[in-house]
């Protein structure tokens, strides 16, 4: 099921198809993300960008095509056997995901949330996991919130904990699914600056976002999707500043394109 590829890209998606019932959400998608690359996926709601992101870590199982992350490749469609739960789990452990609604574990403290992956999945000793978790919390500027429950945190803090939780698995790839869409405007900046910091450290990332200015700043490639197909793809600045396609232009006209990053505060 897994094979080593000589390709240098970290993520490689070929001819990906996915339907929910009669609704074809992804139609023959191809995508490559270089090691250390940051790709932003933009597009109107219902364009399939979140489904595409979820196909990368197989939270959504595609109907056809193939997905490769690092050295692990899965093929789907006629004749292909669906991967079993253990294979899937092992694969997902190498990718980190951050959700729109944080999905923190409310019955655990912040520290326990971040320790959960290392302890349960990587079978790390509790003490080692705690050291790692505290380091990740410090990285997102929330070291002093370790013993609080998620319910006591602001939206921006919750999302930074969620990022720390994903990073604690020391993933090869980070996937962001509209990570700032559920936040109050004044809290967006602190989350974006954490993501930007990750980009500058060379983390391979795929970011589904509505923050066009942020995408322009942080992503090196930008993909505009609509109705399950890639309409336009290219260097982020080029696509945003000079879109070739009319559909891309129409979509981007809904946004202010100042190119400026929202102010970062709260992150040390």
């Amino acid at each position, binding site marked *: 099921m897994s094979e080593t590829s000589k390709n240098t890209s970290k993520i490689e998606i070929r001819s990906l198809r996915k339907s929910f019932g009669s609704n074809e959400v992804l139609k023959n998608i191809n995508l490559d993300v270089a090691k250390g690359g940051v790709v932003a996926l933009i597009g109107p709601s219902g364009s399939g960008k979140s489904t595409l992101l979820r196909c990368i870590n197989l*939270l959504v199982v595609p109907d056809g095509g193939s997905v490769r992350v690092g050295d692990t490749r899965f093929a789907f469609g006629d004749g292909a056997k669906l991967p079993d739960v253990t294979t899937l*789990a092992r694969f997902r452990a190498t990718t980190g995901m951050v959700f729109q609604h944080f999905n923190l574990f*409310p*019955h655990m403290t912040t520290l326990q949330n971040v320790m959960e992956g290392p302890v349960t999945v990587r079978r790390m000793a509790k003490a080692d996991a705690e050291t790692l978790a505290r380091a990740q919390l410090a990285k997102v500027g929330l070291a002093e919130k370790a013993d609080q429950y998620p319910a006591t945190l602001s939206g921006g803090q919750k999302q930074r904990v969620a990022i720390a939780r994903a990073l604690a*698995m020391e993933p090869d790839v980070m996937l962001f699914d509209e990570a700032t869409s559920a936040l109050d405007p004044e809290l967006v900046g602190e989350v974006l600056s954490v993501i930007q910091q990750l980009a500058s450290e060379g983390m391979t990332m795929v970011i589904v976002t509505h923050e066009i200015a942020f995408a322009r700043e942080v992503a090196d490639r930008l993909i505009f999707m609509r109705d399950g197909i890639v309409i336009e793809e290219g260097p982020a600045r080029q696509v945003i500043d000079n879109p070739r396609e009319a559909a891309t232009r129409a979509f981007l006209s809904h946004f202010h394109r100042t190119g400026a990053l929202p102010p970062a505060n709260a992150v040390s």
Partner: protein
Amino acid sequence: MYQWDFGILWSYRWLFLNGLGVTVGFTVVIVLCGLLFGLLGAFGSLSRFRALRLTALAFIEAFRCTPILVQLIWFYYALPILAGVEMTPITASALALSLYGGSFYSEIIRGGIVSIDRGQSEAGAALGMTPGQTMRRIVLPQAIKRMIPALMNQSIIQFKNTSLVSVLAVPDLVYQSQVAAHDSYRPLETYTAVAVAYAAILIPLTIIVRRGEKRLAVSE
């Protein structure tokens, strides 16, 4: 005007204590076995496999939709004839009450599990947990909190349902008090005392559970 005389019950104290012991012991057994059946029924009804789902559904509805008194009599009298399984009154009533309680626990447990936001299992899966690990570490700890009031309620009903085993001559508190009432010609005092005994056990329990709930709610 009726002249109450509770003093007369004192001479039957060992009979009552004996019966109370059987009632409490019985409750412990049928609550534990019932929770086990409930867990099986809940996981069965949430299974990916159709056959398992249908089996669980058949079990739940068979025991939820028939009267417990009929089930007790059926397990004791009908099973030996139909299946050739001989059972003592205690085994028959323990089994019937456990399955009956289990059918209700199943629905409580299933409801608790499905009430947890899908995002929680997705977050577990995204970390690389198997479905089993996600269930144990993420979903169940949250779901159990929500289930506790309903599970407690059902267990209270189970405790009181044990009084029905007297029809199979299992010497529980109600059965022993029947003996005492016939012997003393004081049914009013006897059954009043029995009612008080049930309440005296249940009310402190409900208070403890209510306190526990509050403590659990702190982390929400």
